[in-house]
């Protein structure tokens, strides 16, 4: 580990970052810090999340964002009041995520002309610091920036100075699933800037929460790969002075595996924090309800939402990010969004005093997952020879870390996952993952059981059947009958 970015160097880069769009001129670190200090503590994400963890409850949070400021505020207020959201989001539109501010501007103008949102999120950079503060002032709970931006430096400057107190993403998780041509070194260094900025706020007494984007491509990602990537992003963040970090995981669908993954991830993360000497980090977890294809039928969609809520509540995730009954059709209405929240609230309330019953399969699952994730992280550290960024870059190039179905050409894309007969996600083709024969045999054996049940060899068609399965009312994809 190389330590924090030098302050002088950071401030030098900062000038260029703020010059990229006119609203950058509104940003002042001192003013941003003072603004946060004047906010009531219940509006601080890191503070509230810590409290949630101490109380042992699972907080709920939607995704939401529209093009126009007043509509966006109305949407968040509705989700706070009607949906009883504990935490609110501001989802950023896809043009801003690619730093295409001109196109975002066109989206705002067309939305004004059409009287409806023509963007899939809130273009915070175009609005600037003061409209962001208006959002924070109009709601009563903490608000997080959620997006998918490989270079989020200006977005972070503006939204943090605007009073947002949590920022989702990371140099890996907001590149590999969200970009095609952005080199990993570039996105990781840009995210080190974001983490350094949050470190700067922390040095001046303002806690900003950072969250990794656990679901990655949202489609059959083996949990050990998620865990390894989360740990690497955690280390990158705390190195720059981040003090509140949330590990993220997307639901796979098999309860044993999902709970084991969440618990295994925390255990391994704590181990690595200790090993590298980071002691004062608030570590929390977020569980994402199913991120893959949803059923179009709303009643069925509610069942998928509820199953994710069950896994989150039983695993005692600190926060669950909620889906909506409109998921199969794209961006939801505010009513549908609140319905997802209510479904989730009902379940987390009902299960708050129940615990997951530890069983043998869970223990085996957790042990295997930690072995796999550890193998990936250790090989990455070796490849880096003391330079974590270089290690991650080399690990992706070599396929030591490999995310299935990712659009980035800096991801090898050689592994293939599939569900076993219990619906747990296994690895069918290992690519260059640094796994020993014990791990490989474990996966092979589980997949063989499914193959025998279905009377077919595991293949790409099986994987496609799995991708469509939940949308069609099953967890494990059945062979198609002609």
């Amino acid at each position, binding site marked *: 580990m190389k330590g924090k970015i030098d302050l002088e160097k950071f401030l030098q880069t900062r000038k260029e970052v703020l010059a990229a769009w006119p609203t950058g001129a509104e940003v002042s670190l001192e003013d941003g810090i003072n603004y946060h200090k004047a906010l009531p503590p219940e509006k601080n994400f890191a503070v509230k999340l810590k409290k949630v963890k101490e109380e042992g409850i699972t907080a709920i949070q939607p995704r939401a964002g529209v093009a126009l400021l007043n509509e966006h505020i109305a949407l968040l207020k509705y989700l706070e009041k009607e949906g009883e959201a504990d935490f609110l989001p501001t989802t950023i539109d*896809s043009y801003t995520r*690619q730093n295409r501010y001109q196109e975002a501007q066109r989206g705002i103008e067309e939305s004004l002309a059409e009287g409806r949102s*023509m963007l899939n999120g809130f273009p915070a950079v175009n609005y600037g610091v003061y409209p962001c503060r208006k959002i924070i002032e109009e709601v009563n709970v903490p608000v997080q920036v959620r997006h998918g931006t490989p270079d989020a430096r200006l977005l972070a400057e503006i939204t943090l100075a605007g009073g947002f107190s949590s920022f989702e993403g990371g140099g890996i998780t907001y590149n590999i699933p*969200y970009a095609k041509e952005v080199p990993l070194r570039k996105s990781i260094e840009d995210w080190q800037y974001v983490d350094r900025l949050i470190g700067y706020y922390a040095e001046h007494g303002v806690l900003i929460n950072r969250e990794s984007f656990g679901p990655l491509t949202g489609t059959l990602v083996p949990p050990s790969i998620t865990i390894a990537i989360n740990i690497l992003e955690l280390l990158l963040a705390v190195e720059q002075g981040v003090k509140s970090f949330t590990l993220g995981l997307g639901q796979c669908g098999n309860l044993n595996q999902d709970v084991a993954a969440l618990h295994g991830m925390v255990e391994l993360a704590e181990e690595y924090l200790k090993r590298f000497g980071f002691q004062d980090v608030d570590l929390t977890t977020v569980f994402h309800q199913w991120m*893959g294809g949803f059923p179009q039928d709303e009643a069925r969609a509610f069942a998928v939402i509820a199953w994710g809520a069950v896994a989150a509540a039983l695993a005692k995730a600190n926060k669950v990010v909620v889906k909506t009954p409109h998921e199969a059709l794209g961006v*939801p209405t505010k009513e*549908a969004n609140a319905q997802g929240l209510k479904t989730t609230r009902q379940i987390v309330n009902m299960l708050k005093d129940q615990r997951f019953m530890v069983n043998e399969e869970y223990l085996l699952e957790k042990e295997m997952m930690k072995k796999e994730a550890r193998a990936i992280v250790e090989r990455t550290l070796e490849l880096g020879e003391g330079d974590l960024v270089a290690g991650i870059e080399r690990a992706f190039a070599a396929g030591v870390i490999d995310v299935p179905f*990712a659009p980035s050409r800096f991801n090898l894309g050689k592994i293939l996952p599939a569900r076993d007969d219990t619906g747990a996600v296994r690895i069918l083709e290992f690519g260059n993952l640094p796994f020993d024969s014990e791990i490989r045999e474990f996966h092979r054996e589980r997949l063989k059981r499914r193959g025998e049940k279905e009377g077919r060899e595991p293949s790409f068609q099986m994987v496609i059947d799995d991708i469509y399965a939940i949308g069609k009312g099953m967890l494990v994809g059945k062979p198609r009958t002609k």
Partner: protein
Amino acid sequence: MKEVNLVLGVIGADVHAIGNKILEYALTNAGFKVHNLGVMVSQEEFVKAALETDAKAVLVSSLYGHGEIDCRGLKEKFIEAGLDDVLLYVGGNLVVGKQDFTEVERKFKAMGFDRVFPPGTMPEEAIQALKEDLGLM
């Protein structure tokens, strides 16, 4: 079936990669020669690829809601390039929010698309449509 070239891609700033990979697999299996441009494809890239590959059809996907802004003017670019006869399909979650599909279909047909597919369309339906429209039945 004689070799039929297709261009496939996800338009705009959209990075939804899963359906794109499945479509490539299914279309190739159905016997088409697929030139997959992947995600985040600009209008210009679609036109260029159609010219270079002598494509009979171009399949445009959009999953993130900006389809309306991203697809506007695409047909005109094909006409300018002398590609009036190339079939243009579009499919996915084309607009923001739950809207009546008949209205969405009307809107995109007015933009010059030959076929418009709703959310949740299986690859087989697109393959069937291609075979009909290209007279491969």
